[in-house]
């Protein structure tokens, strides 16, 4: 049997168990690469498929939620409204591993309000923005993350300043903020694994070139531009909870961040001055990058100690969805007392 040779993860599942429906996105779309990295991250981390809740909004990116872990429950919500639907799902069943896939239109335009309030509540979610700076399904309009001065295929220049979903997230008190590139699996997979382990909102803005509408000269989201301007601030390694940290490194060159479940993300620093615990440093990086036209990638900011929504809501460990009505009603005695007070 060849089955015995197949590599299995800690749950005894193969990588195929994490695959989904066949993609219907364009050949060469960055989103397809991201899907593959998501499959690898979920597989490597051994996420239980039945506990995974794949949430998305509307757009090319949001289709991708159907392209991994077919066994899991998924929800293609309305445009820009995924954060609220995901919030409800997590409140109902806090055991779920909530994984959101969104795009730049879905997050930074129609869904900007929900994005902000999800971060403010620190919903425990891995929130991937597949960011190509353009509306794909409606055939090539600028999105709000397109850089000032970036051009559309037919030459129209973007005259409006971009919304940076990472600096916005940090400003809103986000607890895990990273930026990566769809073509850089070595960086993205450990970031995804750390995001999954993080308890709180983990924002991953993944630059994901649109080969059809935004891969030309003049675009700051083309493969060529991103490769030329990718400026990693650190290189992440994900260390699972039980794994030993067996890496030699020069003092000051690696930052170790312990996550809520006991796992670690080790960051080999490219910029040795950057401390991912310091939101002001992260903001400075992003502001400087905006000036130089570089794309800063890596883990930008992390605060793994912050309480997530379910903790702040003091929810019991058992999912709310599992409580029977007899456990939720007041007793007859309490009821009679209440009625006696109504005058």
């Amino acid at each position: 049997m060849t089955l015995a040779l197949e590599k299995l993860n800690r749950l005894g599942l193969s990588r195929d168990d994490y695959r989904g429906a066949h993609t219907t996105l364009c050949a060469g779309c960055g989103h397809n690469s991201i899907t593959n990295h998501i499959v690898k991250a979920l597989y490597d981390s051994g996420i239980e498929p039945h506990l995974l809740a794949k949430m998305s909004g509307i757009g090319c990116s949001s289709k991708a939620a159907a392209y991994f872990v077919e066994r899991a429950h998924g929800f293609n919500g309305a445009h820009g409204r995924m954060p609220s639907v995901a919030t409800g799902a997590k409140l109902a069943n806090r055991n779920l591993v909530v994984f959101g896939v969104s795009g730049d239109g879905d997050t930074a335009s129609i869904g900007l309000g929900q994005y902000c309030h999800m971060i403010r509540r620190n919903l425990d979610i891995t929130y991937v923005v597949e960011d190509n700076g353009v509306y794909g399904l409606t055939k090539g309009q600028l999105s709000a993350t397109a850089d000032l001065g970036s051009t559309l295929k037919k030459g129209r220049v973007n005259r409006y300043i971009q919304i940076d979903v990472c600096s916005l997230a940090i400003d809103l008190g986000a607890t895990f903020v990273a930026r990566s590139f769809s073509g850089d699996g070595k960086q993205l997979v450990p970031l995804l694994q750390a995001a999954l382990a993080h308890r709180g909102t983990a924002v991953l803005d993944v630059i994901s070139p649109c080969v059809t509408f935004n891969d030309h000269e003049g675009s700051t989201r083309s493969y060529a531009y991103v490769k030329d301007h990718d400026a990693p601030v650190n290189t992440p390694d994900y260390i699972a909870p039980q794994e030993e940290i067996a890496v030699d490194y020069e003092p000051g060159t690696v930052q170790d961040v312990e996550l809520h479940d006991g796992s670690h993300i080790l960051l080999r620093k490219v910029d040795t001055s950057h401390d991912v615990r310091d939101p002001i440093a992260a903001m400075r990086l992003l502001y400087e990058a905006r000036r130089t036209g570089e794309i800063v990638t890596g883990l930008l900011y992390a605060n793994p100690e912050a309480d997530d929504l379910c903790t702040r809501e003091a929810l019991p460990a058992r999912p709310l969805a599992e409580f029977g009505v007899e456990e939720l009603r007041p007793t007859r005695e309490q009821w009679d007392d209440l009625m006696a007070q109504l005058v």
Partner: protein
Amino acid sequence: MPGPGVNDFCIQAATVNGSGSQSANLVITRALFHMGIPVAAKNVFPSNIEGLPTWYDIRVSPHGYQARKRTVDVLVAMNPATFVDDAANVRPGGAAIHEATMPRYGAAARDDISWYPVPFARLAKERLDAKPDLRKYLQNMIYVGVVAELIGLDPAAVERALRDQFRAKPKAAELNLEAIQLGVSYARENLTKTDPFRVAAMDRTRGTVLLDGNRAAALGAIMAGCTVLAWYPITPSTSLCEAVIEYAERFRVDRATGERRFSAVQAEDELAAIGIVLGAAWAGARAMTATSGPGISLMGELTGLGYYAEIPAVVFDVQRVGPSTGLPTRTMQGDVGYVHTLSHGDTRHPVLLPGTVTELYEDAQLAFDLADRLQTPVFVLSDLDLGMNQWMTPPLAYPERGVDRGKVLDAADLDRLSRWRRYEDVDGDGIAYRTLPGNPNPRAGYFTRGSGHDQDALYTESPDAYRANMDRLRRKLDGARHLVPGPLVDEPGSSTLIVAYGSTHHAVVEARDRLAEMGTPADYLRVRGLPLHPMVAEVIARHRRVYVVEQNRDGQMEALLRAELPGELADRLQGLRHFNGVPIDAESVLEPILAAARPRPAVTARPRQRGRPGDGGPSRDNEGALTGKPALPVRPAGKLTVGSGGVLP
């Protein structure tokens, strides 16, 4: 029954909002209740925190009528800005207690009512030991004392009501009691009663409580096992959500661990509120939101998604007038047509139409059962009058049954089944079986999306698959006709039928009694839910003239009826509409029906009492007449037959 003017009148306190008059008015209301006299209180208030006119109507009625009265019998005039208009609204022979320093001119100088000037401000300043900022509140308590003395409130009942009101603040209770006593003694020493309005203790409130609809709905949600509330504050639904939180904090918090068996999220807007509800219900919790018309507008898209993706949701719509600054604190039945088909495409949602506080409590529970059973958003339509005003009601009953969570398959169920398809109509009722995220059976997962899916929940744009799915959804919603409560019908045998729904009920009850007394009785059908129960058409078919009474301009329920009834029955409908922002009164029902019932040439309706500006009564004159019908015996009000339906398997 004691003489005229006893236990049958309306007190109106005309004050300035932010002056604490609500406390004073509740003391009067509760004192009347403690005296065993049926009472109903309605607050007509501005969208403002301080300084604008507000009115509080306290109606006592030996019959237990709870609708608004069009005219005022006893006015308490505390607001100089509205004094003249308020005085104009007092009926001849009525009474007006007023701040003595307010200049009297115009209607405030009329000589056909009794005037009781009281120097409230001076009394508060000179006779009460209180800081200046408290005096405006205490002036209101002084009028409680004046009213108590003039109409004969039992001092013990007043004191009990006051102590209840200030249960948490015993020191404030003493000061307020002193203010009331000051009012009593001032009235005793300085005023001579010349009006007929007084109260005498009865025994008609035993076994009832005073409750607003929003609290009743909240209690229904608690009893239904709702665990997730997502909401955005909007008058008049805010107090519903706050009541859910209050009761959840009382009954759902583990005192030892602090764990909370509920979550209440104050969302960023109504889009997020309904999104959270859908997400929570999709994952298996009972979830709700409460809002009003403007919030409903924002919920349109996601409600449609809930309909197509077949996700339970419970939405309370406490109706009010228009968007923006469109009388946000005034009542209306303005959403029934909009809500029933909310969203784009062929959407249709079950709507429950409670008319009483008790029904709101019951419908709140039923809504969760229906949402789970039908896997679809269900709306409960209340309104500002029902939701925010005080109603006498029997104590709410502890539910004798559990709840219906609908067709949900767990892992073991899936093990037993050789096949499961998310959107397959196995039972022929249009309702498929669902699984919840977290179900460990490897076959449990599916992808939830809008209308473009096949029976396996896979994306498709196939015309056949779309059509088949839409036909199944229609079967499902048709089945809901028998699951929503059937109409309440009282049919002694008149050829005239009044059709109403929601809080309009209370004006209809009173109008019917009066019609019967005058020998022109009318039968009554109250619609309790949408889609329409088949019994509605059957009852309409037995009547020649059918008045559809509702509180909106365009006859939304009438339009829904016309769309479903055969043309010959639709022709019998006549709209009778009240839409001025204040709750409908009995005269607005009665007058056009009487006018039509008299032989031609039709006698015009009784001259109306002078009303508040815009208090125009019904919008449509009704022509034609019913002739020569002898008066029929009328069954006592309140004994209505219940249509079939409303009970889940």
